[in-house]
């Protein structure tokens, strides 16, 4: 209800992005094997960027957000619902689709669990970090490009740790997972609060 039926768009975009890598890098197995994990993470980034744009847009433009505010519906509920729905429609399916793509991109099977866990901690972070930025750009002219430009620098640490963690999983050191968990636990406390503040400001 709170999320429009465009929600499957992100996942299909994720699937589509997968095509680019074999076609642009060449189908030689050695190269694809090396880049498989990074390619999946890049696709996750793209899928998140695409879905961020519609995160608060409809609610803002149609005035529903204002209606919520006037009817004193707490924004914390709205933000929480948005976060959960965003993750269930972009992060969650991707986590379960990624092993299949590891096969498509001829990645090694040893990476499956590493990738699974890194995506499990990484995709909620994408949703969390994207939310305040999507809220910031409400009402801006040329919102789409601005949103992409602003959010990529903030996503970089997640990609770095996400990609590195897959490698470290096999060698038995889990330091990047701990780092991802640390960032996740800090973000989940701070960022929704900031998002609520920004949303309230965006109505003024």
């Amino acid at each position, binding site marked *: *209800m709170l999320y*429009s*039926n465009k929600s499957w768009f992100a996942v299909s975009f994720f699937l589509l992005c997968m095509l680019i890598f074999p076609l642009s890098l060449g189908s030689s197995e050695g190269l694809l094997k090396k880049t498989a994990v990074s390619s999946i993470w890049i696709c996750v980034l793209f899928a998140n960027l695409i879905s961020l744009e519609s995160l608060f847009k*409809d609610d803002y*433009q*149609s*005035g*529903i957000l*204002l*209606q919520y*505010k*006037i*009817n*004193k*519906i707490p924004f914390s509920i709205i933000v929480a619902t948005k976060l959960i729905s965003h993750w269930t429609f972009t992060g969650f399916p991707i986590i379960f689709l990624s092993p299949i793509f590891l096969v498509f991109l001829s990645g090694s099977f040893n990476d499956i669990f590493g990738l699974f866990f890194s995506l499990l901690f990484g995709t909620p972070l994408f949703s969390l970090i994207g939310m305040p930025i999507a809220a910031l750009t409400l009402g801006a002219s040329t919102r789409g490009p601005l949103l992409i430009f602003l959010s990529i620098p903030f996503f970089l640490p997640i990609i770095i740790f996400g990609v590195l963690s897959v490698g470290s999983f096999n060698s038995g050191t889990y330091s990047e997972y701990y780092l991802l968990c640390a960032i996740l636990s800090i973000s989940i406390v701070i960022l929704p609060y900031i998002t609520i503040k920004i949303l309230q400001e965006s*109505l*003024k």
Partner: protein
Amino acid sequence: MSKKYLLKVKNLSCERNYKIIFKKLSFILFPGNIILVDGENGAGKTSLLLCVADVLDYTGNILVKNGIDNLGYVGHKNALFENETIFDFFAFWKNIYNYTKNYQDVLEYFNLIDFIETPISLLSFGQKKKLSFARLIMMNSKIWLLDEPISGLDEKTKQIILKIIKKHLSQGGGVLATSHQNLNYFDINKTTRVKID
């Protein structure tokens, strides 16, 4: 002035985008009365409504009668999910406002019963406006804030909406409405005009 008020606004000033929009407005809304806010385009009529609804920052006092915790609002934007049907719309807002009665009567009153499975994006402007008023009825609030309630509507829809407003007033509700058309449809004794310049 010991009469029971619904809404009391005293020395209300509002600043938006670092510009003073209006200064020191005072008025009182009594049950059954309507306040019409006059002013030119961009004078700050919508801002006044939003201040009363506690969306914008303001200085001054806005006192709402004890027990009223929800204000009804119909704005320029209709606040509808465009890709949902009218049925979804009612199901959603019914839950939010705890509206226990059957909404068929509301639908019938607004002549929307035939469109119950139509996506909202296919409805006309007037029908969307009627839907926002239907939500207002479900909400069951004493105070209505109406931003240009009848502008741009055809005669028939206008009459339906005016009838709803009059019914609300007769039940002891209060209305704060902006309009750049002259709304001369109401009892002169129960109408207050507030000018913003």
